[in-house]
Structures are given as C-alpha cells and as structure tokens.
C-alpha cells in the first residue's frame, strides 16, 4: 500500500494521480508533490508516467511488427510473422469493409490505433500495486518521499492520452473532408444541413441553426471517442483499486474482474479503431 498506512481515500487518490512534471508558479520546473501542486501547474505540465508508458508500449508494438515485417517472406509464415499477418489482415479487412475510398494512411493508422490502445489497456491487467510500489522504491532511492511518488500505469486512464489521439483523428477527419469535398463543400456540409429549403431567405435564416447542430455533431465525435475509452478504462482501473482494498477478499475477486476486463480491453481498442475508420469514411464520402 502507498505511503505510511494511508486511509482508503488517500490510497485511491494516490493511485489516480499522475506523476506530473511541470512549471509550478512558486517552485519552477519540478515534479509535483501532490495533486494540488499538479493542478497549480495548469497546462504547462506533462504526465511522465503516461508519456513514458505509452511511448514504451508504442515502441514495443512497432519494434515487434517491424521485426516481423523485415523478416516477412512469401513462403510458409511461422510464429511471429503469422501473428503479425493475422493482425494486419484483420485490420485490412475491417478497413476495406467500411472505408471505400483509396488511402494509404487509413489502414496503418487503424493498425497503430488498435495495437497501441490494446497494449496500453493491457497494462490494466498488471496488479494495481506492483508498478507504483516499484516506482516508489526507485523514487526513495533518489531521495524522494515515497508518498509523493505518484505513478499511474495505464496511459488510457489519462484523459490527456485519449484526447491526444482523438484530436489527431479529428484533425484527420477535417483534413479528409476538405480534401474530398473542398473547403466550400465542407462549409456547406456544416451550414446547409440538416434543414434546407429552396427559398433563399429562409435558407439564410436556417444557416445558424444548421451550423450549431452540425458543429455539435462534429465536435461530439472526438470527445465521445476520447471519453468512451477513458471512461471504460478509468472505471475498470477504479474497480481494480477498490478490489485491492478488500483485504483477503480481493484474491477471489480479482480474477473474475480481470477476465471480464480482458473483454473490455480488446473491445475498447476495437471500437476506437472502427469508429476512426467510420468517421474518416463518412468524411470522405458524400453525405445526405
């Protein structure tokens, strides 16, 4: 357990706080010692644990796949190549079924999304206390107060991580929409639907209403994409933490929740990928 016999609330809060490095108004560039300090840092702060784990997992994914890609032969595939090809074909089929345009970007993008999110989600299955305690031991070696060393292992339980990805996808949505319909087409799509009329005057009146509705629809996509993933994983993590508080009872409870959570992990990665493909294909194709 974290710190010197913390209360339940402290334990949970400790687990939900990122290791933050940022510009504190009073202490300058430093690692935040508490949640309040992290909050005071405002925007100019970075979550070292989230960044570290997500980059490490992304590099792991790319390393494994690159290794298989380099060794790829046209003969009978074995082991790793088999697995990689299975993933690639699965993603390729998903993309082909949904996205009918031609794009060199969408398939690799989907593969990256699926594998990266899956790996980040998978960190949820590591027992909740193992890596934070390890981090505290290492922090203590460098002379830090263990109770000040925060460590959140699952990057997708950080809304910054999920929003970072979904906003990138959002930028792609807008890019694809403008590329396939032109800037005027994109604006027309925002302002001339869903209410349209042949009467020019009435149409002019309807434009603000349409714009409001369509903007909400458009903005809801990246936000829902990010919050869906974040919410699922955050809740899952929270339940793991709560189970960890049960003392001896946690032993039989962890296993069923972990088994159930495997489903969520894969499903959320898949949903994020599929929705990205769907949004991008909607942006490319003519609507209405």
């Amino acid at each position, binding site marked *: 357990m974290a710190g010197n016999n913390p209360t339940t609330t402290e334990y949970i809060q400790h687990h939900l706080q990122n290791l933050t490095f940022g510009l504190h108004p009073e202490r300058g560039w430093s690692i935040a010692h508490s949640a309040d300090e992290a909050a005071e840092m405002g*925007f100019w702060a970075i979550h070292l644990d989230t960044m570290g784990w997500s980059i490490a997992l992304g590099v792991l994914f790319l390393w494994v796949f690159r290794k298989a890609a380099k060794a790829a032969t046209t003969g009978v595939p074995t082991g790793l190549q088999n697995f990689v*090809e299975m993933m690639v074909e699965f993603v390729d089929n998903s993309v082909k079924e949904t996205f009918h345009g031609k794009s060199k970007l969408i398939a690799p993008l989907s593969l990256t999304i699926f594998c990266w999110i899956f790996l980040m989600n998978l960190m949820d299955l590591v027992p909740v206390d193992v890596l934070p305690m390890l981090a505290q031991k290492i922090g203590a070696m460098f002379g830090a107060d263990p109770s000040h060393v925060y460590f959140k292992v699952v990057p997708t339980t950080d809304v910054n991580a999920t929003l970072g990805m979904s906003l990138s996808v959002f930028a792609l949505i807008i890019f694809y929409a403008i590329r396939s319909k032109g800037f005027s087409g994109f604006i027309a799509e925002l302002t001339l639907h869903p209410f349209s009329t042949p009467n020019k005057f009435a149409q002019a009146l309807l434009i603000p209403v349409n714009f409001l509705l369509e903007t909400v629809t458009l903005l809801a996509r990246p936000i829902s994409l990010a919050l869906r993933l974040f919410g699922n994983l955050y809740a899952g993590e929270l339940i793991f933490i709560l189970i960890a508080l049960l003392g001896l009872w946690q032993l039989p409870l962890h296993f069923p929740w972990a088994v159930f959570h495997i489903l969520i992990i894969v499903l959320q990665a898949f949903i994020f990928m599929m929705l990205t493909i769907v949004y991008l294909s909607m942006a490319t194709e003519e609507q209405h």
Partner: protein
Amino acid sequence: MNLNLTLIGQAIAFAVFVWFCMRYVWPPVMQSLQERQKKIADGLDAASRANRDLELAQEQANETLRESKEQAAQILEQAHKRSNQMIEEARENARLEGERMIANARAEIDQEINRAKEELRAQVARLAIEGAERILESSIDEAKHRELVDKLATEL
C-alpha cells in the same frame, strides 16, 4: 483531471507511431501477403493445368492404345488373308505343275508310242520287203518300190 501538455505529447507520439507504421511496417507485410496470395494462386493454377494435361495425356494414351490395337488386328487379319492366299496359290501352283507334269508324261508317252510305231513300221516295211524278196526271189528295185512300201507302212 487536468488537461496539460501530455495531450500534445500524446498527439505527437501518436503521429510519429502512425508515420512509422505507415512507412516501415504496413508496406512490407502487405507486400509479402500479396506476393504469397499470388504465389498460391499461381500454384493452384499450375495444379489445375497439370491436372488438365494429365487428363489430356491419358486420353491420348488411350487413343494410341486403341489405334495400335486396331492396327494389330488389321495386321493380323492381313497376315491371315495373305497366308490363305499363299496356301491357295501354292495349291494352284501344285495343281498346275501336276497337270503340266501329266501333260508332259502323256506327250512323252505319245512320242514313245509314235517312235515305237515308227520303228515297228520300219521293221514291218523291212520285213515286208525281205519277205517279198524272199517270195519273189528276185531283187526288187528298192528305189522303185520304197515309196510303195512306206505308204504301206503308214497304213499299218
């Protein structure tokens, strides 16, 4: 939940990963998949072609076998015919030869008979002349009566 630089960091990391995947991971895997697909398709194609070739060859072999059987039967028949013909010819030859030999023999016999007759006639003529000489006891002008006696001899 404070939004901070992590968001931008994540977006950058995401972009870099996607770029790397697009540049170095996806194309080689996809290429090997497509190449393998083509290879398998070619293999299946070759197999079906070989099957067809085999069928064709079998058909041809059957055809050849049938033809050769027919030919053999034809040759056998011809040989039969030919041998029958030869036997027939030989028989005919033998018959002709026999007939010829019989004819020769007959001719020879006839000749022999004729010669014997000639001899007999000559002897008869001589005997007749001798007898007549003895009877007449006078010589007869042989030159004068020769024609007469010969005439007599031919009448014998």
